[in-house]
């Protein structure tokens, strides 16, 4: 009687890490140069400055509902810095501010989008990204097709798509990983397991031991990484990018991190969050960890920190100012860009709307 039908009872995998909680590198070589780490840290700090600014503006009614990156900065930046913006593509969810900015999306547009101005959606023609995605997981099939198409045309561009632990429960996740496995599409499925989907904890999202293990079911490589460890995330993603570029196909990366802020500015996490768990994760703050690493390398000091902070603040203030000074959209913003060749009925409506609202036609 054969027992081969049973799946092996293997040990759960553990997240790959390079830095200890206090920022000490293991015995291996660093996957990032010091300059690269400082550049990445600046993106992480920039994100904090932006998040704080946007949150306070939102409280004053000057910004829309908005999801901060707090707690996940190493995860997003570690992944983004593995990409080549001139040929790689980002297909985002909505919680990846620094990845988009590094890829070339203007901070001002990001701000305008959340201020509710359609102009914010504008993606400059040299920036390789799809719009932020609100319909959870709907971006994953698109990323897969994009990667497959790039490969089909002989390019060596790679696509990364971001999504959450919550989004991974949608059918789109499954259909996409399956297709990517078949086509060996150069796509990286970057799953940010931040412990929550609004109020739903990871344990209620799936009975799987890890999300990375799902890769097996698609003939795809799966990896689990400590998402609060910039170096580890960067290393793992860099390897996945290199593999994809070389024709080795897709990778599912589970980045284990934690959302230490609210889901968004409309959310009240005190209703559901476990305070002890939160504090545990606050101890693992990804920004502090990188600073500690740089300290251990002897290249971090208060001056440098202040300098970076000031420059981040100046950059954010300028972008926010410019967004605030952007005129409110007029009625043509409802109609422009809906079609390449618009139906007459819509053009008639555009004219009526302009007349009614006293807008220039």
């Amino acid at each position: 009687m054969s027992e081969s039908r049973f799946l092996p009872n293997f040990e759960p995998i553990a997240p790959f890490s390079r830095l200890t909680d206090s920022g000490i590198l293991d015995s291996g070589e660093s996957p990032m140069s010091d300059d690269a780490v400082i550049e990445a840290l600046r993106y992480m700090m920039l994100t904090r400055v932006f998040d704080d600014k946007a949150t306070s503006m939102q409280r004053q009614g000057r910004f829309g509902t908005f999801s901060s990156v707090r707690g996940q900065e190493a995860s997003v930046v570690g992944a983004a810095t593995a990409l080549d913006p001139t040929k790689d593509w980002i297909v985002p969810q909505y919680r990846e501010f620094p990845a988009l900015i590094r890829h070339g999306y203007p901070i001002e547009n990001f701000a305008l989008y959340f201020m509710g101005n359609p102009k914010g959606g504008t993606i400059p023609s040299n920036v390789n990204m799809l719009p932020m995605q609100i319909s959870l997981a709907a971006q994953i099939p698109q990323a897969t097709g994009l990667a497959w198409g790039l490969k089909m045309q002989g390019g060596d561009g790679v696509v990364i798509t971001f999504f959450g632990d919550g989004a991974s429960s949608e059918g789109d996740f499954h259909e996409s990983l399956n297709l990517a496995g078949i086509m060996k599409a150069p796509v990286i499925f970057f799953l940010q397991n931040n412990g929550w989907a609004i109020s739903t904890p990871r344990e209620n999202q799936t009975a799987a031991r890890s999300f990375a293990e799902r890769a097996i079911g698609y003939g795809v490589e799966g990896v689990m990484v400590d998402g609060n460890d910039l170096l580890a995330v960067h290393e793992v993603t860099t390897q996945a990018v290199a593999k994809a570029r070389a024709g080795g196909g897709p990778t599912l990366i589970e980045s284990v991190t934690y959302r230490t802020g609210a889901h968004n500015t409309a959310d009240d996490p005190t209703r559901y969050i476990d305070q002890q768990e939160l504090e545990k994760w606050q101890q693992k703050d990804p920004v502090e960890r990188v600073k500690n690493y740089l300290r251990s390398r002897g290249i971090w000091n208060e001056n440098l920190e202040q300098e970076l902070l000031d420059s981040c603040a100046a950059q954010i203030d300028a972008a926010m100012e410019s967004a605030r000074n952007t005129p409110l959209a007029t009625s043509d913003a409802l109609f422009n860009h809906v079609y390449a060749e618009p139906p007459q009925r819509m053009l008639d409506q555009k004219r009526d709307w302009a007349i009614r609202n006293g807008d220039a036609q």
Partner: protein
Amino acid sequence: MIEAIRECLGQEMEADNRVVVIGEDVGVLGGVFRATDGLQARFGKDRVVDMPLAEGVIVGSGIGLAMSGLRPVIELQFLGFGHQAFHQIGQQVARLRYRSQGRHSLPLVIRSPFGGGVRTPELHSDAFEAFYTHTPGLKVVAPATAYDAKGLLAAAMESDDPVLYLEPLKGYRLTKDEVPDERYTVPLGKLRVARAGADVTLIAWSAAVNVAERAAEELSEQGISVEVLDLRSLNPLDIDGVSESVAKTGRVAILHEAPLTGGFGGELVATIQQECFYSLEAPIIRISAPDTPYPLGGVEDLYIPDVDRVVAEVAALAKASA
């Protein structure tokens, strides 16, 4: 209005332990709008269930729960995410009774907020009701008042047919009419005359009813008497109630938040001109969003018909010669 919905859910769950509530964030959080606040504490984790983030299986498993003998109430966090479950709603929920030749009734309610005006993120605000009114087997209700919200939800939960119960996002906190404490039902398929009038019939549902009422008030100052009909139920449709009003006024305006083309307004026009052709003194007008996607919040006030626009268009209609 949100309190009326919550109260109704609590009363129905109290009265019938076959009622279970499932959806995203409906448990500990009590729903992103707090429609189910406190229910999990009261009725337990088995009867108020935080589901994984997957609308298809939320609806599809709801069918199965009903088959097992329960009476599920499903919350779709926003109607825009009904698209992810469209195959389950449109082809499974709506047809199970017919496909099994009556063996399986489907007492299932899908509650979902919809409509704009509160600056939500993209894809959260679309008024997608027309997709569901073109789906035989599924009933669709859309209350405008807190009183009706409670009574229609009770009726929907009592029904052995599946009901899509649409809640006006904008009305959740704004709408604050009197709601009796005790349990009562408002029948599916009967409209409400929100305001009586003689010159023009103005038809609306859900959040648009409030816009219609305010417009009617302004129009009355211009000497135009507007009868505002709150449809309450899109399927079944109260055709007699509509015809009665149109027979009196001879002029009709339909107001909805959805884009013009293919909106439920077209169905109403077609039905009214069939039933009341010889009473009509002017073309029936539709006041709606344009044929474009729901925009970002900063321009939504230009997209959704507002009181000024309704006043202007209805005033013109009242003056149009026969």
